[in-house]
């Protein structure tokens, strides 16, 4: 193992254990499928010590990785029996996730190198959000009870004949959310009433309402009511 002078660079704070491992592997130019595990483990632990001495909070993730590396190192020391053909190299435990992480890192770099909208390339009307932001003075945020009132209005509109119908394959709340998201993706905002088409069956109406509630809980939509007209609108956040 080579002795190295320890240089402290402040711009070199690692985001996570994988980041640190990638740094060590690149620095020593080692093959990820043939990691000199003793050396890398040693270096890794030195970094942890250094980070602790610099008063950087070493998160639990770093400790878990240290334990994994140490475990692999000790496994490597055990003799391999000839008859155990299916025994894989213990280093694969770390090589596989590393390979995947490096692949995603390269994917991220390639994405960043594209002609980003608003960065390298521009479309007309780039500031739609600013235009929308200027129009918010006349609306107020809506409480749950107003929403339930509005829902009851819609339930009243459903003809009584529908009340006994049993829907064989009704749509799930989850699927309805996905449908609603599609609507919002294309429209930005929808009125509450539009979500409930006139001929809708009661079960559908209820599923839609549950979907709206769930979406509010997940902060997917913002619900507002216009002061004068009383129209309730849902905005996709």
């Amino acid at each position, binding site marked *: 193992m080579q002795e190295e002078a320890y240089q402290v660079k402040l711009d070199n704070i690692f985001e*996570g254990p994988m980041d640190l491992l990638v740094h060590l592997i690149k620095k020593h130019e080692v093959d990820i499928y043939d990691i000199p595990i003793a050396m890398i483990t040693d270096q890794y632990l030195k970094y942890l010590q250094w980070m602790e001495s610099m008063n950087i909070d070493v998160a639990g993730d770093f400790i878990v990785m240290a334990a994994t590396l140490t475990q692999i190192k000790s496994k490597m020391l055990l003799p391999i029996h000839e008859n155990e053909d299916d025994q894989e190299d213990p280093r694969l435990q770390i090589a596989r996730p590393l390979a*995947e992480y490096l692949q*995603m890192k390269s994917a991220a770099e390639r*994405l960043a190198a594209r002609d980003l909208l608003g960065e390298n390339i521009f*479309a007309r*009307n780039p500031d739609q959000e600013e235009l929308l932001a200027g129009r918010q003075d006349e609306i107020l945020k809506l409480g749950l009870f107003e929403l339930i009132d509005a829902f009851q209005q819609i339930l009243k509109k459903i003809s009584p004949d529908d009340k006994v119908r049993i829907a064989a394959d009704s749509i799930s709340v989850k699927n309805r959310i996905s449908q609603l998201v599609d609507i919002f993706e294309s429209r930005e905002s929808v009125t509450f009433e539009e979500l409930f088409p006139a001929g809708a069956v009661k079960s559908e109406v209820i599923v839609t309402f549950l979907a709206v509630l769930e979406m509010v809980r997940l902060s997917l939509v913002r619900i507002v009511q216009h002061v004068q007209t009383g129209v309730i609108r849902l905005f996709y956040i």
Partner: protein
Amino acid sequence: MEDIKYIIESLLFVSESPLTVNRIQKVLGHDDTKEIHEALTALAAEYEARKGGFLLREVAGGYQIRSRPEYREWIKRLIQRTPLRLSKAALETLAIIAYKQPAIRSDIEHIRGVDCGGILRMLLERKLIRILGRKQIPGRPLIYSTTKQFLEVFDLKDLKDLPTPDEIESLGNSFSEMPD
């Protein structure tokens, strides 16, 4: 033929978002999409030959007139807009969702080895990713996927247009060559 080309050009000029061939077809009341495709190709070629301030790009399943990247500095002087500026961590998270979607948080954190909660929230706010629902496994985690906005921002036709990530071979021998 000439006519259609310029009608389409005018539609592209006023449209705020990428225009799909389908939409153009409806506006024109035309049955034949072949002519529309030809007109779009012809327009793209014209802009390319002219090397002017804009070009025609195929993004998010539609077509959009966009400024030529070379002139970005000038446009930035015109419109003061906070740029996208995604951190390395945010880009990695976004890449994982883009390539592995539909993805749940633990998939992402498994690959990156760190907590991604804050980054996911930020990506949701910027509408680069969306929630598809919940996975029916213990804890019912949220399922994430990328949005149309993501395609628009990263100048991608569709998800198949994503660049192929590097194979890891550049970093060493492949699996099969490993000694037993």
